[in-house]
């Protein structure tokens, strides 16, 4: 699926009011089918807003969000979202959480249950089907959240800093699991993070954003071959390059303020 953001602006608060915040100003971006695009930037740069617009959770103040040329009007199972917190349904078992999507769409057959078990196997939780979410660790909960999106087989997957709350070790294994579970079938991925390392590890293309008002500063294609090794020379060089750009953006922003 091709995703297009056309001249997006998003303003929160009453128009002209004193509490008005410009989250995004005139942002245009295209995501090719099968591309893994990472939005990178500090908080307040509008990266999460962009993701919410594609998710259909919010509408732009002006501009259009298009999926294969069609306007995004509301959330839907074609765009699976992994939130920052696992956001599982706390009264449902792991398996029932994964089955939630198929069930609300009227699929109650045995094959669906098998597919849910398969999705749980993919994220390494085959033995935890009957557990309630709060009896799982944060990383395991987030894996259920991935499985619950996978079973819907969405053409687009959105992820909003899904591993930010996890410790370093868990985060790394989750990134690998995420790539393994999600990046086939020519899915288009939009991944939001403030971690340069995470961006370089995951992205085909990194979109660097700057705040106040939120806009795109630069797009960088990451051409390192996969699987990527964090200790590899190329990887460290790419990180260094992006760090340099981000620092320039930062000092420019500071100069603007003074």
């Amino acid at each position, binding site marked *: 699926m091709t995703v297009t953001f056309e001249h997006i602006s998003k303003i929160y608060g009453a128009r002209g009011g004193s509490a008005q915040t410009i989250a995004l100003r005139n942002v245009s971006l295209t995501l090719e089918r099968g591309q893994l695009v990472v939005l990178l930037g500090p908080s307040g740069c509008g990266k999460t807003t962009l993701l919410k617009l594609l998710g259909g959770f919010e509408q732009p103040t002006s501009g259009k969000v298009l999926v294969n040329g069609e306007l995004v009007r509301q959330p839907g199972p074609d765009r699976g*979202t992994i939130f920052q917190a696992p956001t599982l349904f706390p009264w449902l078992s792991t398996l029932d959480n994964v089955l939630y999507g198929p069930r609300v769409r009227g699929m109650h057959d045995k094959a669906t249950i098998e597919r849910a078990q398969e999705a749980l196997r993919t994220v390494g939780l085959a033995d935890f089907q009957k557990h309630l979410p709060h009896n799982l660790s944060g990383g395991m909960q987030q894996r259920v959240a991935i499985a619950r999106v996978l079973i819907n087989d969405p053409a687009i997957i959105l992820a909003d800093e899904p591993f930010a709350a996890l410790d370093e070790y868990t985060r790394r294994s989750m990134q690998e699991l995420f790539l393994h579970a999600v990046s086939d079938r020519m899915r288009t991925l939009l991944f939001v993070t403030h971690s340069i390392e995470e961006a370089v590890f995951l992205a085909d293309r990194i979109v660097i954003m700057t705040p106040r008002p939120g806009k795109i500063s630069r797009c960088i294609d990451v051409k390192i071959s996969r699987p990527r090794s964090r200790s590899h020379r190329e990887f460290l060089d790419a990180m260094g390059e992006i760090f340099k750009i981000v620092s320039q953006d930062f000092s420019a922003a500071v100069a603007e303020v003074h």
Partner: protein
Amino acid sequence: MTDLSIRRDHAGEGSDVADISDSGVSAAGASEANTNESMNASEGRLYYFLVPAAFLLIWGVTDVMRSSEFSFFPTLRGVTICIIDWIFNVSGGKFFYSGMWLTDLVHSLARVFGGLVLGSALAILLGLGVLWLPASEKLIDPIVQILRPIPKTAFLPFAILLFGLGNGPALFMTVYGVFLIVYVQVIMSIKLVPADLRRASRMLGASQRQVLTSVVLPYALPGICGGIRIGASYAWLILILAEMLAVREGFGYTLWNAYEFMRMDVVVAAMIMIGIFGFLTDKLIVVVMKRQFVWAEEIAEANV
């Protein structure tokens, strides 16, 4: 990471010693924790009865040392005899209350639970309606907020004029009282449902209506049941007053009738029964909640 035994049942307070581990891992740790828990529970049960027992003891002792000014206050012995006659009709129908206990109990319980179920259902339906049409909250809210400070019992004269003497006003009053309390709690619980949980539901394919039934309602239900619990205590309170004036059976009727005969021992007997069954109603709701909302219980416990 494998230590994920789920405690399924907290309701039985230690009596269900074996019913603990779901996944079967870490049995040693689990049983140790459970022993501590059951010890605490039996100790807790002892404390539970300590104060009522002490009260009865003191009351019994004062039976023999009454001065005449306090003669209207019944003796423990007198009240006990009343209760026995009320339940078992040992006097052979000598008094208006003799042998009437079961009739009184059934009528009072039916009215309390009738009011509780109807009032709660009404409150939940209206609450979901408000969620469906957010603008309607602004229409309903002022009425609810004005009605809330007016004592629920103040509607009794109108209820009697409207429905005549009998079950009508008693039921109307309890339904109204329960509704008002539960409704406020429903609105609050619904507002506490995290926006991301509703978003998650939508992006997984749920329709707006399915979000209500499959996410908002289950998430809000423990909170709503907390409201029903408060509603139940109000239901007893309102019911007893309504029964005093509007009907010819029930704990409230017996209490007021006894007062008119200046039978303070029967008044106290009726008060004790109201207390016991009010307490049991509350316990019942708590037990049901603990069984139904294991997830909410455990999350709440983990956050302590």
